[in-house]
């Protein structure tokens, strides 16, 4: 049994990863609530952004700050393009169809990444990763701090934004009923486009952070979306705060199981098991369904 002292660094690592899961989860929930699309390409978009940033820095020798911006911009633009092109034709369809369509985008991006960047292993280090400070015996780097802080910040800002601003109100209205909202004169397409853009930018940010916290690897980053997905499922794709909490818990459980050697190998199950248990527990008295417009 590891001592409390031994545990502390794992808590730091877990909080940092949890922060990114939460950040990604919030990006997915906002998009889902506004457009009804669960974006399964969230991880792939961020991963591709990170790879492009790597190439800009290492092949074209761009300043790294600009490359990071390009990464975020790539996430925003690709997600927006997808939303503008494929959002409207799929708008009236079942949520499952919309989600499956984003799988198509994820596969296209994944295939392209492993085609272009599979020749050798790569790594990218943010300047914040190299600097840190010690708390007791634990070394904490700034990327970890940024990850957690961004997780909190994005959750809080989004929640306030949805409540207090005109666009936010429009988004919430859209979440309830697209057609009635449109009839009320809300520019539906423009509101949706804004959501796609913001969600995509979050995907870019998450990709950049994860490439540092986890590693620059196409398949890993693409399928890491499953951990964030688990967080959004625990929150029933509704509550932002719940998504945040779930993301942090998943990150923490994953990290804190690591020093127990006997079960350490099973720690990757954490998001799956938590999501399964939560879903089954929440649905014990009812049928959860995505039947359109019945919420």
């Amino acid at each position, binding site marked *: 049994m590891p001592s409390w002292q031994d545990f502390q660094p794992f808590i730091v690592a877990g909080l940092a990863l949890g922060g990114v899961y939460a950040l990604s989860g919030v990006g997915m929930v906002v998009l889902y609530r506004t457009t009804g699309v669960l974006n399964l390409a969230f991880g792939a978009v961020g991963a591709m952004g990170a790879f492009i940033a790597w*190439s*800009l820095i290492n092949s074209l020798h761009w300043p790294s700050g600009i490359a990071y911006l390009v990464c975020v911009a790539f996430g925003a633009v690709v997600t927006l393009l997808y939303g503008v092109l494929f959002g409207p034709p799929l708008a009236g369809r079942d949520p499952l169809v919309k989600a499956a369509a984003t799988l198509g985008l994820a596969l296209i991006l994944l295939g392209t990444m492993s085609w272009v*960047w*599979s020749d050798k*292993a790569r790594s990218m280090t943010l300047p914040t990763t190299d600097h840190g400070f010690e708390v007791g015996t634990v070394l904490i780097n700034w990327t970890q701090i940024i990850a957690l802080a961004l997780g909190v910040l994005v959750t809080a800002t989004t929640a306030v934004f949805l409540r207090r601003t005109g666009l936010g109100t429009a988004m919430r209205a859209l979440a309830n009923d697209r057609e009635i909202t449109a009839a009320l004169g809300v520019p539906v397409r423009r509101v949706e486009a804004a959501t796609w853009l913001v969600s995509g930018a979050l995907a870019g940010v998450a990709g950049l952070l994860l490439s540092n916290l986890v*590693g620059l690897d196409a398949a890993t980053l693409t399928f890491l979306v499953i951990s964030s997905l688990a967080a959004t499922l625990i929150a029933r794709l509704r509550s932002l705060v719940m998504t945040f909490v779930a993301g942090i818990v998943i990150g923490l459980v994953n990290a804190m199981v690591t020093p127990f050697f006997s079960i350490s190998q099973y720690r990757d199950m954490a998001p799956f098991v938590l999501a399964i248990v939560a879903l089954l527990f929440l649905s014990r008295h009812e049928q959860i369904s995505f039947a359109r417009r019945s919420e």
Partner: protein
Amino acid sequence: MRRTGLIIALTLALAASMTLAACGGGGGTSDSTNKAAAPAAAPKCGAGTGQKATGTPIKLGGIATKQPGTDFTDIPNAAKAFFDCVNDNGGIKGHPIQYVIETEQTDPGQIASLAKKLVETEKVVGIVGNTSLIECAVNHTYYEKQGFYIVDSGIAPECYSTPNSAAVNMGPRYSVDGATQYLLRQGVKKVVLDQSNVPGTGYIEGGFLLIAKSAGVPTASLKDNVPIQDANSIALKLVQAAGSNGGVVLNFTPPEALKILQAAQRQGLQNRVKWACSTPCNTDFLSDALGSQWNDKLGVNAELNLTSASGPDSQLYRAVLKRYAPKIPLGSFSQMGFVEASILTKALLSVSGDYTAKNVNEAIKNVKNFQTDILCKPWYYGSAPLHIPNNTDRTVTPKDGKMVEKEGCFPISDVDPAIAQVRQIEAKG
């Protein structure tokens, strides 16, 4: 409607891939070798006549893993580069070598079918350059039935425990042995092995446990799922498991090992324990990515000589890659392909009759005392229930972005029973 959808999708895909090709293209080839200006004298391989071979071709084949995250095709591609050089130098008594490379995605069904394709459809007369996570395990009985003697780069246990496979490397188990021996010489009080959770972990840890036990040092053997998603936690776990004055042996592919080592560096753990690594870490890309903070702090077991070594074979190796495969980076992978192709060339030149599968495989089996400065000891095949011809190697360490030698050739401990068995076979001649 449907037409538009298709066009939109295609355009998106196309635009995406084009942007990327533009950004990503230049990434792979920044090695010092490729910058050379004047073309040096054409390298001499095989017969060394300088004449292009024009006879009926001799067909060889190889199977390598190529999938996202795991790409071993540098090995057969380097072998192909050497064969191209042989073909430009008179070939095998005038016959050029035609080399067929098949790639697989660790699907046993596919791997089994590819071996049949090479032997029965392509009708290759020899198989060389195989490098795969599971190929030896899947195909060794087939090769035994067909009478094929394979010269490969081994990973699976069956590459080192069956009569029809001889590798130029020593594989994960014996390389982990060597890394463990290095740590014990450094005087560590406990050794921890962490390896990727892929088929064969129980086999790989076997030698590690025996060697540490015979030295009276406590052990911990851990496994982590790849691809690694929480490198920070893993690095912490390993350091805590090793304790003070402990040592850690990593057995991962380069990108995964890099994740752990970088995570250790981020958390200031590179001095807390002694770090060691099995062969895969021996690439300049890893030492480059690690930077000077790891100078002399990581012992990497190296089954092959440094790529910058000065022996004649090392010089030929660099010249062949530069001329025939400038895109393949210098590293242990391309060295293995080079050595395997050299062995095959020697075997083919010794064939007296027709180049049939039977004659060629007999010649491969009869290779002995194959000398090269890329290996510590001469390489051999021969009839034996198992082959580990490479059982003496070095330790290297990163220094300012390059790998340099830390320990010269040393024998892998015969505490590991298979090594003891091989030494007996060698003693008998």
